């Protein structure tokens, strides 16, 4: 086969392969973090990644289900995974860190215990094999963007940034097997490829308060406040996240945080997809930047 044709075919194969990536938005991306959804899709388009949304998907159970009932907390994600299997998807992208965590945990637990697997399959009344590969946004970008991203940058994101991973993206390591659990690096690496300077800071994987955003805003103010302060003290001009809950706590709860700290921190919080999108020249509107509570003044 002539070399040229070989590469052409390779490219076609790659496209077919890419088209097969499933997409599970989850509730947050349809609601409070609509801009995350917009930026993931916009970036996917810019990078030639085509998503296929899982049809008839349901809530993963988020932070509530696993506090109420084990069966429920496993059945909800299991149904999503079973739907993906039905749709013939080999891998799915789950941008929300909480959904990613719940789906992965379910897959792990059901792989460990055959009896439980059968029980859950009965509850959801669907066949479940458990072979779908679950990717978070960082893994997606690492695979499809890290090689090409540098060449596509039109407006380098040349700011000092604090890459904030939070809890759900890396823990528990036994299940997720993603990056170094206490000292993750992938987001830092991706950000440095678009011209940013990731700072060395202490709260990379600390908790922001998570699901307490509504019920115990005081705890969120304290936890998120401490980490924001450390990032700002060390010169961060933006916080980069990959989790809707981290984002809403750091962004939406800013007034409460500033009150707790008795300060006026104005540092914006961006999803990694928004930061990369900006660097690739996408418009702030396409990336949903105007939806933030803390204005993004870096553009």
């Amino acid at each position, binding site marked *: 086969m002539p070399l040229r044709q070989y590469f052409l075919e390779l490219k076609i194969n790659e496209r077919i392969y890419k088209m097969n990536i499933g997409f599970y938005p989850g509730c947050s991306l349809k609601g409070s973090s609509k801009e995350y959804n917009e930026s993931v899709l916009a970036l996917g388009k810019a990078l030639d990644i085509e998503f296929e949304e899982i049809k008839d998907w349901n809530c993963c159970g988020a932070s509530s289900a696993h506090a109420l009932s084990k069966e429920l907390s496993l059945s909800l994600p299991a149904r999503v995974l079973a739907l993906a299997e039905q749709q013939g998807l080999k891998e799915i992208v789950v941008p929300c860190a909480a959904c990613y965590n719940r789906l992965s945990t379910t897959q792990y637990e059901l792989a460990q215990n055959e009896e439980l697997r059968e029980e859950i399959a009965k509850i959801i009344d669907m066949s479940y094999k458990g072979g779908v590969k679950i990717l978070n946004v960082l893994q997606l970008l690492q695979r499809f963007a890290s090689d090409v991203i540098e060449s596509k940058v039109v407006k380098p994101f040349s700011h000092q940034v604090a890459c904030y991973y939070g809890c759900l993206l890396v823990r528990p*390591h*036994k299940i997720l097997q993603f990056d*170094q*659990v*206490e*000292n993750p690096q992938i987001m830092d690496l991706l950000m440095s490829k678009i011209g940013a300077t990731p700072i*060395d*800071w*202490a709260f990379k994987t600390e908790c922001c308060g998570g699901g307490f955003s509504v019920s115990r805003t005081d705890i969120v103010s304290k936890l998120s406040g401490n980490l924001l302060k*450390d990032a700002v*003290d060390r010169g961060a001009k933006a916080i980069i996240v990959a989790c809707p809950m981290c984002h809403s706590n750091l962004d939406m709860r800013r007034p409460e945080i500033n009150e707790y700290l008795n300060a006026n921190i104005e540092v914006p919080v961006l999803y990694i997809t928004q930061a990369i999108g900006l660097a690739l020249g996408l418009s702030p509107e396409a990336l949903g930047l105007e939806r933030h509570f803390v204005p993004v003044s870096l553009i």
Partner: protein
Amino acid sequence: MSKIGVFICHCGENISGTVDCEKVATELSKVEGVAYSTDYKYMCSDPGQTLIKEAIKTHHLTGVVVGSCSPRMHEVTFRKACAEAGLNPYMCEIANLREHCSWVHEKGEATTEKAISLVTMLVEKVKKNKPLTSIQVPITKKALVIGGGIAGIQASLDIANCGHQVILIEKDPSIGGHMSQLSETFPTLDCSQCILTPRMVEVAQHPNITLYTYAELEKVEGSIGNFQATIRLKAKSVDPKLCTACGLCSSKCPQKKIPSEFNAGLGTRTAIYVPFPQAVPNKPVIDKEHCNYYQKGKCQVCQKNCPTGAIEFDKPDELITEAVGAIVVTTGFNVLGTDFFPEYGYGKYKDVITGLQFERLASASGPTLGEIRRPSDGQIPKKIVFIACAGSRDPAKGIPYCSKICCMYTAKHAMLYQHKVHEGESYVFYMDIRAGGKNYEEFVRRAIEEDGVNYVRGRVARVYEKNGKLIVKGVDTLLAGAQVEIEADMVVLATAGVSNQGAEQLAQKMHISYDPYKFFAEAHPKLKPVETNTAGIFLAGACQAPKDIPDTVGTASGAAVKVACLFSQAQLIREPLIAVVNRSGPPSFSTCVGCFMCETACPYHAIEREEIKNRNGEVLKVVAKVNPGLCQGCGTCVAFCRSKSIDIQGYSNEEMYAEVMSLFNN
């Protein structure tokens, strides 16, 4: 025609309580080939043994079966009695009527029937038994000790003081090992160098010890009593006979910034160097990896300056072969493993150091001459945090086992710090305090109560730098999980003790087993703590698992005694219960077809290849041969042999078959 004698023991009432011993003896007398059968109250007693001896002589017995307790108890006794009466001891077998019958069954007909069967089986076996003679192996009375730390030093001195020759090899330029790096030792706080260096000198001067430093084991062949060890003497590039250790070469060497191994990276050394002033031998070597001449082809400043012309570049490594009878492995351990916890910032922050580095800071021979000064700016730290179990006892992120020495050395470190910096504050984060050992618990209490070290029970989550301080974030589990933040000037990690680099390769070279953590495995964790599964190779010190100095020295002396025991025999006498490959006359010579499946199967590397030649020296056939010195009689080869050419002496297929078939024939 066999003439078997059967002797049924009552064992007081232990057997006769549930088994009708008289009936067993009567029934057995009816078995074909039994010439004499009797019972007695205590067969192991002197009159009992005499009974057996007399019967052998009177009835010209060709075999003996004793129905008594377990052969583990009295097989030796009865076989000795038989031998004294002129019968080959391996023609005597023990039927276990106590543990296998009377103790485990109710009194009754069936129990007696079982006893009869057990004895009958052995009678049938003895009919097929062949007289065996014990194996004699000559011994080379010279020991090889691998590793010149305190374990190797102690083992070498003990063996040498028993009057035997010792070859001690050490991979580094000096002996001394980790102990030479330590400041003070727990629980007495005596100076490590003061108790170690005299022994190092003793090793160098002992007439029975040949010391090879900068040397490594290349390969080992042979077996217990007769090993051939090939040793690589790495080129030192300095002729020790000409060198007067004046030190001019090191002072002129332009490569001055190499991290010093002896100072655990806290100090520097030159490319031509003596690792520390008290080194034995106190002669320099050239580190080829850092030497300008070896790397770039020019420099030779040391050669130009050497007043005696001792520098010899480009000399190749030398390989020597030594015949030794026993090997003691004392290759020690390592205290690295900082990558288990990247969040503690080792490598990122200069003032986060390991326990071994703290030893060097506290040592009078260290880079700060014993003053506790932090590496970043040389300031005396006002607050130190010690983190115990930085990797140990953590199956998720580190290693699951306990490194054993850290609780004690951390208490010692905190204590030394408090003694040297009176106004200083020290904190120890710990999981549990494991201070099992003579005066150990008292030592830790002393650190807490007298020296005011603050012990915090809990784990540290993260160490980070803020405004020039190291913030140690952790939890105090005794205060209901309260979060603790300490602004420290220095953090010391009690990193896990791990196996030494190259341990796995060394174990494979010597065919000794090792555990999943690459620590060498002892033959039995309790009753054979210094033996390996390979006869003639012994272990001592921290190559088995992390050990403190007392335990290390204890095992080293233990291994030395095992070597001395071995060497005290004129010849090695072993039980002949080993595998043999059958041999016959021409044309087949043996049923062995030379497939050497047995060679693959043998865990002791006892299978050799034997060439059968005719008178003209032409090879007619290659067959397997079992080295009697190595074979442990496990029988794996027997199971693997496709042509049924191997048998275990004393447990041959024929014998076992006869034994089992007797159950069906009656």
